[in-house]
């Protein structure tokens, strides 16, 4: 590994020569703001928020798309840099609805955070704002063009990571929006409703359709493993008053911040009254709730009984794709080693 020495905000550091200035800064805890950067994707360079001053170059440089060089001296917070970022934010706010009071994204919105950090406010102007265009045809999420800052994260996640290519930039210049073919709506597109676009959207432009009303600061995040299949995707359940109100993917995990439609949007059943929360025992044609300990006891009793009466091959086990590899392994082990039968199968073979 070749390394270079450079100075960022008066801090001398030595980093891998293949890094960009932004990555180098991040590696020593210097955060550079950005709205279109995602380490999983190619550099896009659209938001210009990550501009920094590099000694020796007259113009500001975007740190996401500038490679480190030996002897480079970088300043990430000079007045010129801050002024440029403020102006960029102001241009965004000039074309953004002033509805943070009721916007569901409030509190978790990167644009809002930066506007606060850089002290930029909405202002009145007579100029044009982007036309109203809302695509709510998809059952799980909705796109609101007026809140879109065209960072392109959704488009790139859809085509590069999800590899679906359901959406793209449509039109050019000021009239650009994110759209589907012929603006026929997401429901008529190739969209598989994975919701990965929703997960990366920095603003309220792409939002899940929520059954519950909640503010982002009211929720508690509970990290867990998605139970829909054996991949083991890591998710944060967003809970409010012991109710799951949303799901977000965990980035530094096996799923790298991605989910499928089930993991992302299928959580309403958790709070459904019909959902089983405890084992049930049918006695005299009526189900009755019992404890787990009691349930295991009954299973053991029955296994012993039928084993004695009919032998091992009177048992068969059917495992689930929602179990992990490890769980499936243990399940077949239970059948082969304990129950001594090879009658074991898995729903994925169906």
């Amino acid at each position, binding site marked *: 590994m070749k390394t270079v020495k450079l100075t960022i905000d008066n801090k001398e550091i030595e980093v891998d020569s293949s890094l960009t200035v932004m990555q180098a800064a991040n590696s020593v805890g210097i955060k550079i703001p950005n709205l279109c950067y995602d380490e999983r994707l190619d550099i896009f360079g659209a938001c210009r928020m990550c501009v920094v001053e590099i000694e020796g170059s007259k113009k500001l440089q975007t740190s996401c798309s500038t490679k480190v060089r030996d002897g480079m001296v970088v300043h990430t917070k000079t007045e010129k840099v801050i002024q440029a970022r403020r102006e960029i934010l102001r241009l965004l706010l000039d074309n953004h609805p002033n509805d943070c009071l009721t916007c569901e994204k409030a509190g978790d919105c990167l644009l809002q955070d930066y506007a606060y950090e850089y002290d930029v406010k909405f202002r009145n102007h007579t100029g044009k704002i982007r036309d109203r265009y809302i695509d709510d045809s998809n059952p799980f999420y909705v796109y609101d063009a007026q809140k879109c800052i065209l960072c392109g994260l959704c488009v790139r996640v859809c085509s590069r990571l999800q590899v679906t*290519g359901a959406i*793209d*930039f449509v*039109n*050019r210049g000021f009239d650009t929006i994110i*759209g589907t*073919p012929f603006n026929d709506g997401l429901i008529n*597109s*190739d969209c598989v409703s994975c919701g990965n676009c929703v997960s990366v959207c920095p603003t309220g432009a792409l939002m899940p359709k929520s059954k519950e009303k909640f503010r982002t600061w009211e929720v508690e995040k509970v990290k867990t493993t998605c139970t829909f299949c054996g991949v083991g995707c890591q998710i944060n359940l967003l809970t409010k008053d012991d109710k799951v109100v949303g799901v977000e993917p965990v980035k530094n995990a096996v799923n790298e911040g991605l989910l499928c439609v089930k993991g992302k949007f299928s959580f309403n059943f958790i709070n459904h009254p019909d959902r089983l929360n405890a084992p049930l025992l049918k006695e005299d044609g009526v189900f009755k709730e019992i404890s787990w300990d009691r349930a295991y006891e009954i299973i053991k009793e029955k296994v012993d009984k039928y084993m004695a009466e009919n032998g091992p091959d009177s048992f068969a086990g059917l495992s689930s794709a929602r179990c992990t590899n490890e769980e499936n392994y243990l399940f077949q082990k239970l059948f082969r080693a304990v129950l001594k039968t090879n009658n074991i199968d898995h729903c994925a073979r169906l």
Partner: protein
Amino acid sequence: MEYTFDLEKNKDKLTEYKDFLKMIKATNGALMPALQKAQELFNYLPKEVLKIVSEELRIPLAEIYGVATFYAQFSFIPKGENQISVCLGTACYVKGAQAILEEFEKELGIKQGETTSDLKFSINEARCLGDCSKAPVVMINSTLFPLVKKKDVKKILEDLR
């Protein structure tokens, strides 16, 4: 303007177009030539045709639509039999091309970017046709009209009718 693509009427053109796609399919960057050919053959980019492009070139339809809406030459309504491009390049602009454009719009009763209902004429503003020394210029199909004056517009249109 609502316009339905007539598959039956365009049968021969579609065959020709599919052959063209087969020919260019293997070349790198085939999408632009594919769209250009479609625009040339059908005078616009019908949904049905873009779906064929998507299947043949194995490019998502969304991406094709994104590309098609980016470039000014592609349209989603049929262009007229006579495509009038009024140059609004700098040289033409300083010599009053805006007034020429308005005159065409007035005479045909459509705005730039539109097509007359009989599909005879469409008007587009053009970005410098590169004939600045003869400004203001108008290009109709591939014929260039140099040094156009406002009063010439009527006559030009009459000759085409």
